[in-house]
């Protein structure tokens, strides 16, 4: 018996969540060998790290398709290796990719998958404890199948060392059909917001119905561009169809946490404020001195956004030009 871990890599290192999965697998293996599968060029560079965490053998699957992310091909390689090793369990991190690869594996082997586990016992059926509900509920379940497929909930265990004397490396070329190669990352394009995602932007400039129209967002985009920030909007704007829902800041949109949030012509409805309460500083531009947003704003300009926003942009240009 042995346990196989599908390991994800960051450039030059093992992904932290995968190390947690290795630690989890070690407990599950209970002394039996822990194998790791890595894919792609220079994949064996992570061997020392995996050895420190208790991996006895690192298997490197080699194929040109692994140059980019190809979940079905990884799953096919995993299935082949797990069969050869007679693995009793396959474990991966409960990351988006880990869950995706193991979902493919489950389909290939016609076996059930328990995702987001925090605990598991060996045995048949295995008793697993899973995180549900974004962490608010724990579910206990029985997992059946000759090979137990599990992903490990992020940060359910912390990665610990358990060095193995000499971790071996074995290379193999998995049997892949053309169909296995179809699902892969073929190109990457930047999001339309100039590369700054709303959720991660340091500066967010947003506007509400006060912008007046879809075209009215021109001045908002201009200011966001000057500040290297992202454009946001209120629900009213999405309802009116001026901006896509992906731009919406609020309870039912994106939750943001920028250093500076510039809210122009936004009254500050509760559902909007629930989305920007993580902002370190809020600058409100509003014609209404009684607008609720002023209660939460650190700075405020009482005035029409159509005058104030271009004025800020002009000042910024002047300052930079000087």
């Amino acid at each position, binding site marked *: 018996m042995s346990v196989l871990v599908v390991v994800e890599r960051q450039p030059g290192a093992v992904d932290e969540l995968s190390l947690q999965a290795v630690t989890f697998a070690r407990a599950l293996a209970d002394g039996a060998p822990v194998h790791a599968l890595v894919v792609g060029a220079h994949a064996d560079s992570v061997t020392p790290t995996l050895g420190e965490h208790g991996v006895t053998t690192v298997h490197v699957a080699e194929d040109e398709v692994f140059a980019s992310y190809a979940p079905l091909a990884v799953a096919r390689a995993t299935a082949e290796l797990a069969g050869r090793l007679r693995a009793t369990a396959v474990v991966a991190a409960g990351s988006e990719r880990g869950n995706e690869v193991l979902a493919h594996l489950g389909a290939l082997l016609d076996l059930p998958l328990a995702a987001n586990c925090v605990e598991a016992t060996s045995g048949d059926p295995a008793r697993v404890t899973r995180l*549900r*509900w*974004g962490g*608010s*509920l724990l579910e206990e379940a029985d997992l059946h199948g000759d090979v137990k497929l599990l992903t490990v909930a992020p940060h359910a265990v912390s990665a610990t060392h358990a060095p193995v004397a000499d971790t071996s490396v074995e290379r193999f070329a998995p049997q892949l059909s053309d169909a296995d190669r179809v699902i892969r990352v073929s190109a990457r394009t930047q999001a339309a917001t100039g590369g700054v995602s709303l959720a991660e932007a340091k500066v967010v400039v947003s506007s509400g*119905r006060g912008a007046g129209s879809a075209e009215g967002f021109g001045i908002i985009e201009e200011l966001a561009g000057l500040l290297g920030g992202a454009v946001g909007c209120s*629900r*009213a704007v*999405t*309802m*009116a169809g001026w901006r896509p*829902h992906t731009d919406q800041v609020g*309870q*039912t*949109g994106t*939750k943001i946490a920028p250093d500076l949030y510039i809210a122009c012509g936004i009254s*500050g*409805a*509760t*559902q909007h*404020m*629930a989305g920007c*309460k993580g902002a370190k500083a809020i600058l409100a531009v509003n014609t209404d001195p009684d607008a*609720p947003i002023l*209660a939460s704003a650190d700075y405020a300009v009482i005035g029409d956004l159509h005058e104030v926003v271009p004025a800020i942009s002009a000042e910024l240009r002047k300052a930079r030009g000087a």
Partner: protein
Amino acid sequence: MPVSALALATVAAVALTLFARRALLVLRLVRMGAPLPRFDDLPKRVENETTIVLGQKKLLQRVVPGLMHAFIFWGFVVLFPTILIAAIYVIDREPGLPAASPLGWIEGQGWFALLVDLFCLLVLVGIAAAFWIRKVQRPNRFQGSHLGEADLILVLITGIVSTLLLWHASQIALGLNEWGADWSPLSNALSGLFGDGTATEALERALVWAHVLIILSFLVYLPYSKHLHITTAAPNVFFGRTRAKGRLEPLDFEAADDELRFGAGTVPELTWKGILDTMSCTECGRCQDVCPAWATGKALSPKLLIMNLRDHVFAEGPKILADESFEPTPLVPNAVTDEVVWDCVTCGACVQECPVSIEHVDHIVDLRRHLVMVESRFPAEAESMLRDVERSGNPWGKPQDERAAWAEGLGVRVLQPGSRPPEVLYWVGCAASFDERARLSAESTVKLLLAARVDVAILGPRESCTGDPARRMGNEYVFQSFAKQNVATLDEAGVTKIVASCPHCFNTLANEYPDFGGRYEVVHHTEFLADLVARRRLRPVATDKTITYHDSCYLARHNDVLAAPRELVAAVGQPVEMERSGTRTFCCGAGGAHMWMEERGSAINEERVREAAETGAGTLAVACPFCTIMLDDGVRQTGRDLRVADVSTLLVEALERSD
């Protein structure tokens, strides 16, 4: 035994066997459903049967189609003995029924002959109206219904009644009638069509046979069509809800493993009443007609929901009954799509409208329960609400210690552990505690209660979400933990009477907390304030400005609070009603946790604001914090010149005028 008797017995046996086979299947399918307590409260069930079935109360909410149906229905009740009489006459032209037997007695009664003629006429009028509605008027509510089936049934009914009339006429022509012809003016007039010779004798036989054969065909066709409702509607009404309309049946998480149920994922997980509901639907579309989701272009039609569930029950039910190893497929998305399940605002308009007591909202919540608790599948944007309710005790994730911030400086007592219990506890609710627009109503209500010297207090940070949004989303588990926690807090504080301003809190506190041991006298703030005005403890001065009042679904439809808010509106201004008002109000769009979901299609709140603006009123009065937020947004979105204000705020202004 005469040949005719043998022929009748054979035909009737075939028809009754076919009918019984189908009826038995229906019965077994219903019994397959999950348990639901519906055998209590007998007097109320008898009352419902009397008013809704015999009195056709729900149908008569719409006069023309209501009368059309009532004529046909009452006609069938009255004409029932004539079916048995006709069957006997099939065997023998002159059976000489003994006058002492019930059929012989009623046959000899002139008044009964008159009733038969009258109701034959009324049924024909009803049929004509039905054809007119279906062929000329063609209302949208029939969109998606089986129209051909309905036409065939109308033709069969026409056949039954016209053969009966003509048969009676031929009897009169032959002098065979047991009753005075004067008693049956219609048959008598028609008898002029017949002579008294052998041709009429043959016709008389043909007509009575035709009459009985059409009835038997009808009997066989009925359970395979939407007309199954003739047999299922009466029991369905009998087993309908009798308890508070706004109450959802709790799930029992302590139940034994084999009875543990997390909502409905497959056919056998539907409640037995749910399965009976699907078989009672006549596809009349009244529910679809009043549904705010359907009206604004969303995927949900309550009628299609029930029809699709029915088709799924009939497709899989027999397989489940026949083979224990058969694994039923998920109801969502096989019978209904995810979209349909999440479109519902739980406003209850469909349930209110349904003539056969179908409980659409209960089934939608049951489907949601399964999706949320078993599959963690629900609109992504609602996740933060559910998490915030759990973690912060309110759906916006605001700090609990800021819950009473709105009350600072108003002088209302905040109950501390061990404080003297107040006469009245004001249950503020999350929206009025935290939302800038909704809190105005909390401030107004407290000002008014204090002005009337009511001994009132609030719980402050010890108040938390009632769990309503989680429950309507399907997270029964989270709801029940909040219910237990809040009941413990209220009991510990010695609370006996509660004033709530949020109709959702009000409904939960009054109708749902008793299931968790919380029994309090709960009134809505409009009721409490209207009483203070009636007793002259508050003396508002009305202006001549027109105000239209928007009924909240959870206040009006689910709890019948209609008069109090109207009395207040009349005390502060000039009321003008919207077309859809009272228990037939139109939702603002926030119910069923839609406050925290994105809306597809056109906006429900804008539709309602348009209707309010059409009254010409300058003020749109509301009595619910969610309605306040939704309709105020609607006013901004549509750019109408309309002020949205809670009734309590209008009352404060009306008192200030008297100073």
